């Protein structure tokens, strides 16, 4: 990797990390705002009770249950954010591909909601151990999801899944709409190719190819492992 490629990788990685953390901090703020209002509502309901009109305990219980749901939501955000933050700990680690992809889907959900796109998981139930750079893998998958979200027009659905082969995993990000492959996308795909090369993987199919709606990433089970294709990255 050249000096300018290394600088770009560092800058893009930092931007990706920041985008994910900022997004989840907004989500957590939403949760805290809701808890604040529900706690306020409980207080209001207690204050509204008097001798003629006793406090409705079932309403208080109902609001308490809604607070608990938000606490659970907050815990899920923190757990995913924490695991994501720790994915930079080691440049190469053995990790579960299913967990990594599920985490990217969770982190990308906010972008999908704001883009009004349905993000659908087709991730298999089985775990799959992969030895590689978990952070770069998540970044590569997110780049594809993000490009698909930005191009969504009519159908507004993006499906993410993977399948396992003897020599690695094939990750598919498929949009129900055509994914743009104009200049900014081509530039991003160039960077994606760089990232995948670092992971020992390859972009088997990109939006530049018919039917212009899919990204297929191939990753080896181990760094330096055999790849499905030795062809150069295609847009």
């Amino acid at each position, binding site marked *: 990797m050249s000096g300018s490629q290394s600088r770009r990788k560092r800058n893009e990685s930092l931007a990706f990390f920041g985008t994910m953390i*900022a997004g989840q*901090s*907004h989500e957590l*703020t*939403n949760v*805290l*705002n*809701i808890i*604040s*209002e*529900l706690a*306020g*509502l409980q207080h*209001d*309901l207690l204050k*509204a009770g008097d001798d003629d009109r006793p406090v409705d305990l079932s309403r208080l219980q109902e609001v308490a249950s*809604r607070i608990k749901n*938000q606490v659970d939501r907050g815990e899920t955000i923190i757990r995913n954010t924490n695991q994501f933050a720790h994915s930079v700990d080691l440049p190469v680690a053995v990790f579960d591909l299913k967990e990594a992809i599920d985490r990217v889907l969770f982190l990308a959900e906010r972008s999908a*909601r*704001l*883009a*009004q796109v349905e993000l659908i998981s087709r991730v298999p139930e089985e775990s799959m151990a992969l030895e590689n750079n978990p952070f770069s893998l998540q970044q590569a998958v997110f780049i594809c999801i993000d490009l698909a979200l930005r191009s969504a027009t009519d159908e507004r659905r993006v499906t993410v899944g993977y399948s396992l082969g003897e020599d690695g995993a094939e990750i598919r990000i498929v949009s129900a709409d055509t994914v743009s492959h104009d200049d900014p996308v081509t530039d991003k795909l160039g960077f994606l190719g760089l990232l995948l090369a670092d992971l020992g993987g390859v972009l088997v199919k990109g939006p530049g190819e018919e039917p212009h709606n899919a990204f297929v990433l191939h990753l080896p089970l181990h760094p330096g492992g055999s790849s499905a294709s030795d062809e150069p990255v295609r847009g």
Partner: protein
Amino acid sequence: MCALRVLFVDDEEELVSAVVERLQLRGIEAQGATTGSDALNLIEETTYDVIAVDVKMPGLGGLEVVQRVKERHPELQMILLSGHGSRDDAEEGRRLGAFDYVEKPINIDIFINILRKAAGSVKSVTR
């Protein structure tokens, strides 16, 4: 004195539901909407004194809602709800004609004061 009529718009349904009930418990005729387009439809059907709308929502965001409402109903008072990092947008909303902005989390008493001030600044027009 007529009750204040408020529409509260935010994409977090639980937040809308809690704030609307808290306003109602204080004698305010409050309704909620979770999208900008639902809010625009309600505004055409119902008379409100003040609309409080979140800046950042999927689809029609708060700024677009302010712009569209002000084009059709310039007399209607609007308040933007902002979170961290959206204060610039809230300032832009004031430039578009919003009465004020309120940062979340809301202090309900301060929020109601701002709603009353907004409603008092221009008499609502029955449509």
